[in-house]
C-alpha cells in the first residue's frame, strides 16, 4: 500500500503535472460545469441498436479533464475496483496526450472502453471524487473520460499492446472469457505465463457480449479488446466446456499449473408463479443471449425471439432495463417494467432508468405478477398483476413490498421477460466435490488471494459474488492473478 502511495506521489510530482496544475487556478477549474454526455434522440434510438451515448469530442474531453484538481490524496482511486491511476490519465487528457491516457488506463484495466461505458462510476470513483465528497458538486466525469481515451486510441489506430515479460512456459488455464477471466488472463500474460482461456460459448466476452446490449456496449468494442489480448499471447478456445470437454485433471496432466474460474452467474431465476412456463415467457438471460449473441432480431437467422407488441419485463435492475429497452427496439408498442417496489428503490443505474423513460418504456412500479394466462396454443396472452404497497424496511434497508388485497387486474401481454436475478453457473462446482461453496452457491475464496479450497484453483467475478458488476469481476480477476502468480512462483521455487 505504501508503495502505491509513493508511486502516486512520484507521478504527481512529475514536472508536466506540476506545470499543468499551475496552468489554471483551482477556482477556474471548480467553476466549470460537469460535461453532459451527448445522447442519441430517444425516439430515434429506441428503434435501432446504435449506441445511446455518443461519446465526448476532444475539446470537451480536455475541458472536462481540466475540472480535475489532481488532488494530493486522490480518493477517486480508492473507489476504483481495479485501482486505475485516475488523476494521471485525466491529466494526460487535459495535456492532450490521449494515447498516453489510454496506456495509463491499460496499466491496470484490460478493458477501458468497456468500463468507460458500463461501470457504475456514480457509485465508485465518482462517488469518491473530491467534488462529490467535499464540494457537494457533480464529480469529474471520470467514466466519460475513460471511454474517451480508450475510444480515441482505437479509432486512431494506435492501439497499444501492453508489454509482456519473457515467456516462462508455465501454463495457466482460465475458465470463462467474461470480464473476470479476461482481466486475469491479461495480467498473467503480462507476467509471461502461457495463458489459455476456455470459453463454453461460441463467442468470447461472456456477459459483455451475451448480456449487455449493443446500444450500451457494441460487440465490436469487446472484440477489439480481446484482439489486443491475443496479441499479448493469450490463447482462446471456444465451444470448450471445462468439466465436460476436458476435466481439470486432464488439463493438469497436460501441464497446467493453476486455474482461474470465472464461469459467471448465468443460471436464470424465475418466480415460479402459475403459468410461468407458457410459451414466450423468457428469462432475461435467454432473451438477451438470443438477441445479442444469436441474431434473434434478424429474420435470416434460425434463433428467433418473438417481437412482441405488449412486452412485460419483471424486475428492476440493469438486466431488466437492458431487456425492456431491447424489446422496445424489436418493435414493442408497449414495453413495460413491472417492479414490486418504487422507482427510487430500483437497483438499476439511474442513467439506465433515465434512458428507458426517455425511450418511452412504461414503468409499472408497485406492481407484481401473480399469474400468467395463455391462448389455445399455449402462448402467453395475459398477465395478472397485484398492486403492492411499501411496508417496513427489510434487512437491506429498503421498504418491503406488501401485496394489497383485492388489487389484482389483468394486462394483455404477448412476451414476458423475467429478470429477477441469477445464480452462479453450477457446472464447475458440480464436477469438483472438494470445492467449498457458499449458501448462495458461490465459490468460497480467500478474499486476499481469491484462492479457493482447492489449492491450484482461484476464482472471481459472478461465480464468487453472485450477479455483480463488470468492474468488480475485473478487480477479482486481477487480484486472483496476483494470488496465482505468488502461488505458482512458490510452487515452482519449491520444485
Amino acid at each position, binding site marked *: 500500500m505504501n508503495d502505491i502511495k509513493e508511486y502516486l506521489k512520484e507521478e504527481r510530482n512529475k514536472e508536466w503535472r506540476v506545470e499543468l496544475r499551475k496552468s489554471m487556478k483551482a477556482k477556474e477549474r471548480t467553476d466549470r460545469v460537469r460535461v453532459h454526455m451527448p445522447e442519441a434522440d430517444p425516439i430515434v434510438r429506441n428503434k435501432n441498436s446504435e449506441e445511446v451515448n455518443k461519446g465526448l469530442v476532444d475539446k470537451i474531453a480536455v475541458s472536462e479533464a481540466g475540472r480535475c484538481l489532481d488532488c494530493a490524496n486522490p480518493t477517486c482511486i480508492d473507489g476504483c475496483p481495479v485501482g486505475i491511476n485516475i488523476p494521471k490519465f485525466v491529466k494526460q487528457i487535459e495535456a492532450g496526450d490521449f494515447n498516453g491516457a489510454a496506456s495509463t488506463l491499460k496499466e491496470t484495466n484490460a478493458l477501458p472502453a468497456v468500463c468507460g461505458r458500463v461501470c457504475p462510476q456514480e457509485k465508485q470513483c465518482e462517488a469518491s471524487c473530491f467534488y462529490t465528497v467535499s464540494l457537494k458538486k457533480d464529480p469529474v466525469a471520470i467514466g466519460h473520460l475513460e471511454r474517451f481515451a480508450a475510444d480515441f486510441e482505437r479509432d486512431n489506430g494506435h492501439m497499444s499492446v501492453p508489454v509482456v515479460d519473457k515467456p516462462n512456459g508455465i501454463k495457466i488455464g482460465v475458465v470463462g472469457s467474461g470480464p473476470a477471466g479476461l482481466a486475469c488472463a491479461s495480467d498473467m500474460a503480462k507476467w509471461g505465463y502461457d495463458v489459455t482461456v476456455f470459453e463454453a460459448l461460441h463467442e468470447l466476452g461472456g456477459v459483455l457480449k451475451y448480456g449487455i446490449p449493443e446500444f450500451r456496449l457494441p460487440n465490436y468494442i469487446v472484440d477489439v479488446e480481446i484482439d489486443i489480448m491475443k496479441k499479448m499471447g493469450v490463447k482462446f478456445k471456444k465451444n470448450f466446456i471445462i468439466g465436460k470437454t476436458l476435466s481439470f485433471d486432464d488439463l493438469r496432466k497436460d501441464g497446467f499449473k493453476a486455474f482461474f474460474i470465472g464461469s459467471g452467474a448465468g443460471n436464470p431465476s424465475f418466480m415460479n408463479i402459475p403459468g410461468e412456463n407458457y410459451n414466450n415467457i423468457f428469462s432475461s438471460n435467454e432473451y438477451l443471449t438470443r438477441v445479442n449473441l444469436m441474431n434473434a432480431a434478424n429474420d435470416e437467422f434460425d434463433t428467433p425471439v418473438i417481437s412482441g407488441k405488449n412486452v412485460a419485463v419483471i424486475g428492476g435492475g440493469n438486466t431488466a432495463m437492458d431487456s425492456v429497452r431491447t424489446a422496445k427496439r424489436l418493435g414493442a408498442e408497449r414495453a413495460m417494467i413491472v417492479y414490486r417496489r418504487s422507482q427510487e428503490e430500483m437497483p438499476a443505474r439511474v442513467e439506465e432508468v433515465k434512458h428507458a423513460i426517455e425511450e418511452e418504456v412504461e414503468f409499472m412500479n408497485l406492481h407484481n405478477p401473480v399469474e400468467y394466462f395463455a391462448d389455445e396454443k399455449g402462448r402467453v396472452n395475459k398477465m395478472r398483476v397485484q398492486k403492492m404497497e411499501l411496508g417496513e424496511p427489510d434487512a437491506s434497508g429498503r421498504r418491503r413490498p406488501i401485496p394489497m388485497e383485492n388489487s389484482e387486474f389483468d394486462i394483455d401481454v404477448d412476451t414476458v421477460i423475467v429478470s429477477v436475478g441469477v445464480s452462479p453457473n453450477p457446472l464447475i462446482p458440480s464436477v469438483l466435490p472438494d470445492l467449498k461453496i457458499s449458501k448462495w452457491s458461490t465459490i468460497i475464496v480467500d478474499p486476499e488471494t481469491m484462492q479457493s479450497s482447492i489449492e491450484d484453483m482461484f476464482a472471481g467475478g459472478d461465480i464468487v459474488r*453472485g450477479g455483480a458488476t463488470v468492474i468488480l469481476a475485473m478487480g477479482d480477476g486481477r487480484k486472483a492473478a496476483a494470488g496465482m502468480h505468488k502461488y505458482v512462483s512458490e510452487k515452482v521455487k519449491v520444485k
Partner: protein
Amino acid sequence: MADLTTKYLGLTLRNPIIIASSGLTDSFEKIAELERNGAGAVVLKSLFEEQIILEAEHNLREAGKNSMIYDEYSETLDYIDIHIREKELGKYLDIIKKAKKELSIPVIASVNCVSDIGWTGFARQIEKAGADAMELNISIMPFDFEKGCDEIEQKYYKILQKVKKEINIPVAVKISPYFTNLGKIILNLEKEGANGVVLFNRFTSPDIDVENLKLTVSELYSTPSDMINSLRWVAILANRLKIDIAATTGIHDGKAIVKQILAGASAVQVASSIYIKGISHITEMSKYLEDWMDKKGYNYIDQFKGKLSSNKSSRPEIYERLQFMKYFSKIK
C-alpha cells in the same frame, strides 16, 4: 381380528393414526421410517409463510456481512424472498414426489398461513407433486386490536376459498379453539368447502425465567390433559358436520385414540407421544385399538365412531353443562 381401516378426507388409511406436522415428518427418510412402524398417514412439516420471510431477512443480513457477496443493487437479492420460497418449496415438493413414488401411506402437505396472499401457486404445485391432501394450518393471532372478530374470521374463509379454487385434492383446515363462536366458524369452513377440520392447533407455551428475567418456552410437548378441549368439540360437532374431523393435541396412548373415535373423530394426529415414547409407540397404540375393538366385539371403526357424541341434543351447551353439573353437583 379387527379391521383398523378408516376413511379421512376421502383417503383410505390402514389405521386412524396420522403423524402430525412436526420434525418427525420433515424428510423422506423419516416418513419412510414412520410407514415401516405402522403410521396410517403423515402430515408433512409445515411450510411456514413467516419462516420464508425470516429466512430472507437472515440471508440479506448475511450477504451484507460477507465482503465477497455483491449485495449492493443486486437483482438477485432484490427478490431473495422469492428465491428462498422457491428453494424451500422445491425441497418440499421433492419430499412429496419421492414419498408418493416409494411409499404407500397417504401424504398430506401442510402450509402454515398468516395471510391469504401467495399460497395459491404453492397449492397447485403441491397437488401436482402428488400430495394426497392439503392441510391449511391457519393461525392468525389477533394482535392487531383494531381488527374486529369478523375481519379476522373472514381471512380464514378467504384463505380456504383461494386454495379450494386452485386444487382438487381434499383440503383440511387446522385451527385453534380460541374463537368466540367456534362452532359457527367450523360450520362456515364446511360451507366454504373444507373437506375436514383438525382440532386443535397447539401454540408455544410461554414461560418466564424469574432468575434470569427472561421469556422462555415451557411445555415443549403436549400432555394427556391437553386432549380435553378437542374431545369436547369433536363430540359436539361430530354429527353436525358432514366433513371429517381429525383430533389432535394430547393424544398419547391407544385409549385416547379410542375416546376420540367414540366422540366422533375419523382419525387422530399425534406427535408429542412419538417424541416422548419413540417410534415404536405407533404400533403400541394401534395394538391397543385393535385389542379394544376385539374385546368390545367391533370389527370396523365405523361401528363405534361417534357412539358417544352429543348427537341427541340440539343445544350442545346443555351437554357441556350437564357434564359439569353431573360431576360437580352430583346430579344424576
